[in-house]
């Protein structure tokens, strides 16, 4: 037993000596070499830190941009928002349309803004009526910044006193004679846009038949059950809902449909806006569209119009005074002759 132990200690001692000899053979670094190694190590660590920190900082903006682009692109979210905005204009702004192909978009960090021009048909020509700029934070829009170029723009905040189209049961706040005087005193070589309110609800084709031939019915204001009061159930002022009366040949227009009538397109648009009411209410002048109840009313009662926007030569528009179904008229924009 004791012999084994001695043998083990000898082996250990031998191994230890061998190792110590090996270590003693290795030359230790000189002071200069040690400083050099430390300096290289420090520089390397410093350079690595700077480069990695820089890389992380420089990745922030591209990642945020890419995330935003993907957010708006996946599922066509941006196109859907643009669709809601443009269709809101068609059905809430009388005789107004836009060139969707010229709509500009700019995607920022978690935001998008769109700008587009709106147009009004006065006589035979489309005139630039103004410009809309709408900012979205993700899919939440802000109120649009509008720059309207019209001589007689509709009030930004709708009110019973300043509206232009009136339900047969709503009172008319302006003097009728004044409006006919304006029309009568306009020179003959002009074209104009007029808002007419009817004595009774009627079907669009019936109204079309009542009108003299040398003028164009542009936009129809549809009875949605709230126009008599001109406010929604909560007392918030509403504006007319309606649709273009004519087939629109421009390729970007929703009312350029071969298999649907304008009435059907109008109902489809209202269904779309109902599902996206917060966006539509930011774009429309009225801050309440109450689309659920108004759409249900239209589906139940059918499309009956109580007002319309008509354009044509001033001389011809004066003939509207003889139509007994017209209860009130308000003159809109007037332009130089372009009817032929």
């Amino acid at each position, binding site marked *: 037993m004791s012999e084994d132990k001695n043998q083990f200690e000898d082996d250990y001692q031998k191994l230890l000596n061998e190792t110590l000899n090996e270590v003693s053979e290795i030359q230790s670094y000189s002071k200069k070499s040690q400083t050099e190694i430390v300096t290289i190590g420090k520089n390397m660590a410093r350079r690595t830190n700077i480069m990695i920190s820089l890389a992380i900082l420089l990745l922030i903006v591209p990642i945020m941009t890419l995330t935003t682009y*993907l957010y708006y692109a996946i599922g066509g979210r941006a196109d859907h928002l643009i669709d809601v905005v443009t269709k809101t204009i068609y059905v809430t702004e009388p005789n107004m349309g836009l060139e969707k192909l010229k709509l500009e978009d700019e995607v920022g960090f978690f935001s998008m803004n769109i700008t587009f021009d709106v147009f009004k048909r006065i006589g035979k020509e489309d005139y630039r009526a103004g410009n809309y700029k709408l900012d979205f934070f993700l899919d939440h829009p802000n109120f649009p910044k509008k720059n309207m170029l019209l001589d007689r723009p509709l009030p930004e905040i709708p009110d019973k006193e300043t509206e232009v189209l009136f339900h047969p049961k709503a009172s008319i706040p302006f003097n009728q004679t004044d409006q006919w005087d304006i029309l009568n005193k306009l020179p003959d070589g002009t074209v104009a846009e007029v808002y007419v309110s009817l004595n009774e609800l009627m079907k669009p084709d019936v109204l079309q038949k009542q009108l003299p031939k040398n003028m164009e019915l542009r936009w129809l204001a549809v009875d949605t059950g709230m126009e008599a009061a001109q406010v929604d159930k909560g007392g918030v002022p509403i504006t007319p809902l309606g649709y273009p009366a004519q087939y629109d040949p421009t390729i970007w227009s929703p009312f350029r449909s071969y298999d649907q009538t304008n009435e059907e397109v109008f109902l489809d648009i209202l269904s779309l806006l109902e599902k996206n009411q917060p966006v539509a209410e930011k774009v429309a002048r009225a801050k309440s569209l109450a689309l659920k109840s108004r759409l249900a009313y239209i589906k139940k009662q059918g499309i009956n119009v109580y007002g319309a926007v008509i354009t044509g030569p001033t001389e011809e528009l004066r003939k509207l005074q003889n139509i007994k179904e017209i209860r009130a008229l308000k003159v809109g924009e007037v332009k130089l002759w372009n009817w032929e």
Partner: protein
Amino acid sequence: MELGVKKKRGDRRLPTISGFLSFLVALISLAGLNVALLIKEKVFPGVFIIQLPIVGFFLGVIGLFTLKRSRLYAIWGLSLNIFLLIFTLLMIISSLGINYKP
């Protein structure tokens, strides 16, 4: 007892030159891209999102082939250059999905 270190230069684990260059190219590309994004340049400069990242990608791949040297810079360079190329591709695809006009 003083510990000694074998004097072999190769053991210092310095990064590969091509790996370093790849990382550097990626940083330059990223800086250019940042400037383009921050000044809201409509057309991205292709040199920062296509040409340089492709060069950086191959430098990074070359930088990976080493046994004794560090691959740290090569991995960073390669990753950043791949990110830049994927960024370019995804931006093109997503731009076409936003208000596309024929």
